[in-house]
């Protein structure tokens, strides 16, 4: 069968200052297929696709869409002409309603004289939400009131409302629970059967090999190889991704789920709306406690409560037996918290890597906890940058100019660097490539061995099963099931209690 090329990228080059993000990249994607894009953090996946989706321009090279020259002037323009992209982080505007987000820049469509027909707009928006299977979201709600997953779904609704010919999904799924992922898989499937085109970016090898028909590997801005479906092989893909073989354990290899006696942090009968219902839980010294569940189950709120960032309505959060007053108190007790919403809660984008890492570590390296000596600060930051191999020009680079996974590493290093004894990690490996993920897992394991405690909240069941000593499944603000570490534990065991 003759394949019809829809997306063509020829000889594309893009520099950011001295960083060569793309180096003469060629990509072709055909009608009726899902093409995977995989590569280490900072290899240029987002850059290449976002150029095609009109978000930025390239320095050199040409693009074609269905055989014609393709030069979108903006994301809006690209979407209007059939190329939509779901971005890696937040792609919605927080302060406006869901409906306004879905029809962003199109309010003219609902104009009647000087007025905007809001009810009409909300009705249409609800229709679109329903069509993608996200009818639990109300179109008249303010977007900021939604959680991360639902905001993502709103963005998907905006793109799908335009019925695009080409859909780019950039590293979205790891932030979503099973339900959100299923919505995306359904959409991609449907596009494929309709003879449309999907470009899918993910760091989850199993997922990407399952979903995609072809797989293109990028490394340091260059195309390394394209695998056809019958050539898919996990080891081969990994090796071409990182340019060497990945050795050693990925998760931890032991099945000894033991931990200390001492309770270092706990929740006592905490209540908070529909997020926490009379919930009690204990984290022990030297324990990795995993928490899984659907996105609305309350696990993300639980992390915030334990860090003192959110007050429960009743009940209490304790660290070393004393109530957690606020974040500063938690930090004094050596608690660290990596939030899920990276760009808003974990990082200040418009500040350097140095600023972001050292802000939580000032009490570590500042003289008398007050005076900042540039040399000491530099050494402290460099240590984290090296440990996590953060890909950057220098520590002075702004975080906004980092690739998604590298941002996540900064958020992680901010807390591991200050020697936190109790770490609350909410989706810590989101968007991180397998090489660094492995390093993070090994680091977590090492910390456990050193007697530190980790509360691992995650949407990724494999990671929870792979790392936890104890694993709790939450549903509707309650604990549904507790598993002990054992070899036989499988994802389907967990899912049974999640839904």
């Amino acid at each position, binding site marked *: 069968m003759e394949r019809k090329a829809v997306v063509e990228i020829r000889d594309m080059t893009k*520099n950011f*200052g*001295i960083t060569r993000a793309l180096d003469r990249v060629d990509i072709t994607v055909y009608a009726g297929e899902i093409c995977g894009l995989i590569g280490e953090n900072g290899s240029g996946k*987002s850059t290449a696709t*976002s150029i095609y989706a009109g*978000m*930025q321009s390239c320095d050199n090279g040409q693009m074609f869409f269905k055989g014609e020259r393709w030069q979108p002037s903006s994301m809006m323009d690209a979407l209007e002409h059939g190329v939509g992209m779901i*971005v*890696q*982080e*937040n*792609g919605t505007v927080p302060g406006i309603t869901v409906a306004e987000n879905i029809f962003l820049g199109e309010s003219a469509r609902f104009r009647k004289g000087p007025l905007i027909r809001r009810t009409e707009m909300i009705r249409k928006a609800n229709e679109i939400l329903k069509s993608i299977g996200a009818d639990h979201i109300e179109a008249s709600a303010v977007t900021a009131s939604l959680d991360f997953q639902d905001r993502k779904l709103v963005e998907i609704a905006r793109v799908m409302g335009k019925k695009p010919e080409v859909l780019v999904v*950039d590293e979205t799924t790891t932030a979503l629970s099973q339900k959100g992922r299923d919505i995306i898989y359904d959409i991609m499937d449907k596009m494929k059967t309709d003879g449309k085109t999907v470009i899918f970016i993910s760091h989850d090898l199993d997922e990407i090999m399952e979903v995609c028909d072809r797989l293109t590997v990028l490394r340091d801005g260059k195309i390394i190889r394209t695998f056809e479906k019958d050539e898919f092989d996990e080891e081969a893909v990994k090796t071409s991704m990182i340019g060497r073989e990945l050795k050693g354990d990925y998760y931890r290899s032991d099945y000894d789920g033991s931990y200390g006696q001492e309770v270092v942090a706990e929740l006592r009968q905490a209540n908070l709306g529909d997020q926490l219902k009379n919930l009690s839980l204990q984290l022990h010294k030297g324990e990795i406690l995993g928490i899984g569940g659907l996105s609305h189950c309350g696990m993300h709120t639980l992390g915030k409560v334990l*860090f003192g*960032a959110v007050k429960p309505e009743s009940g209490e959060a304790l660290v070393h037996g004393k109530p957690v007053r*606020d*974040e*500063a108190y*938690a*930090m004094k007790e050596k608690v660290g*918290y990596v*939030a899920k919403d990276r*760009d*808003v*809660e*974990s*990082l*200040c*984008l*418009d*500040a*350097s890597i140095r*600023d972001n890492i*050292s*802000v*939580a570590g*000032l009490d570590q390296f*500042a003289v008398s*906890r*007050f*005076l*900042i*000596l*540039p040399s000491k600060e530099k050494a402290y930051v460099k240590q984290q940058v090296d440990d996590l191999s953060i890909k950057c*020009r220098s520590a002075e680079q*702004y975080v*906004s*100019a980092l*690739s*998604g996974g590298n*941002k996540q590493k900064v958020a992680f290093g*901010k807390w591991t660097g200050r020697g936190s004894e109790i770490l609350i990690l909410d989706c810590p490996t989101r968007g991180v490539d397998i090489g660094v993920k492995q390093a993070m897992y090994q680091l977590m394991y090492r910390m456990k061995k050193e007697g530190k405690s980790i509360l691992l909240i995650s949407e990724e069941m494999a990671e929870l099963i792979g790392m936890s000593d104890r694993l709790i499944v939450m549903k509707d603000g309650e604990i549904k099931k507790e598993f002990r570490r054992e070899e036989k534990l499988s994802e389907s065991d967990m899912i049974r209690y999640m839904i």
Partner: protein
Amino acid sequence: MELKSVMNRYGLKQKIFSIAPLFGLIALVVCFLAAATAKDLNIAYSMKNILNQSVVVAVIATGAIFIYTLGSFDISLGASACVSALVGGMVYNATGSVTLMFLTCVGVAVAIALINSVLASVFNLPVFVTTVAMLSVLNAVVLMLININGTGSQIAVPTDAVAGLNTTWFKLLVLVLFFAVCLFVFDFTKIGRLQKFLGGNPVCAKLSGINNKRLAIIAFVMSGIAVGLGSFLSITYAPTLTKNTASSVGMDVIISIVFGGMPVSGGARSRIYAAVVGAFSMTFLNQIMVMFNLNSGIGQMVKAVIFLIVVSLAMSNQRNKEILPR
């Protein structure tokens, strides 16, 4: 094309942008010197004049940078300076002590700043709101003070008493010392670092254990000290105090800070030197316009246009950063 790629290569563009205000100041100085030479003016005298006109704004604006860094704003600075100067003048007239007058100026200004920030923190309001209320209160206080204590329209400190301090050296000394302290706090202590972070992303700052209220109060105290110093300097320069004392300071501070390249939204891009650079740039610009006989109406308009250009340039530079939502 060549140049562009070379600049790109070393990230020069960003660096140039960030020190553009400094180039602006240098250009203005050069223009001024050229014009002054051409018109055969006494340069030493003009420079002294420029220092006199800039120093008060430069000092107060340097303190105010701490507030702007938080992404906040204080509209009552000018009025606060006026009240501090008036009370300081009264204290001198009652006691005859310049030291007491100095301490009063600083004390009153810091007290006003504290009221602003503590009220805001107690009632959980944006500080900007309390400064708006404070502005009207202070304006009323000014009238009251003058009515009760002055000759009806002014409070005069004897010129002899402060003439010894109305010197170039003293003013430079105050400016340099205060700037050094601010530079230290801003760039080499936890306080400045956390303030910049807080201005950049308050949500993340909270989750990093940063106490926003305490930092806001510290920022206001810094600006209070600056206002106190500024009001003292303005007494030495113009010892006859009226309700118009420091009247243009409030506005000039805002303009200077923006002129000096300070991002309006605060955050990590904040620069402590922006205030000094901006204040002097403005005065040089004024002087140049005066030399070319632009009357003050046109002068104001030229200023307004330049102001808009500076702000839009600064904003477009930030927008160009292509901050991708990733």
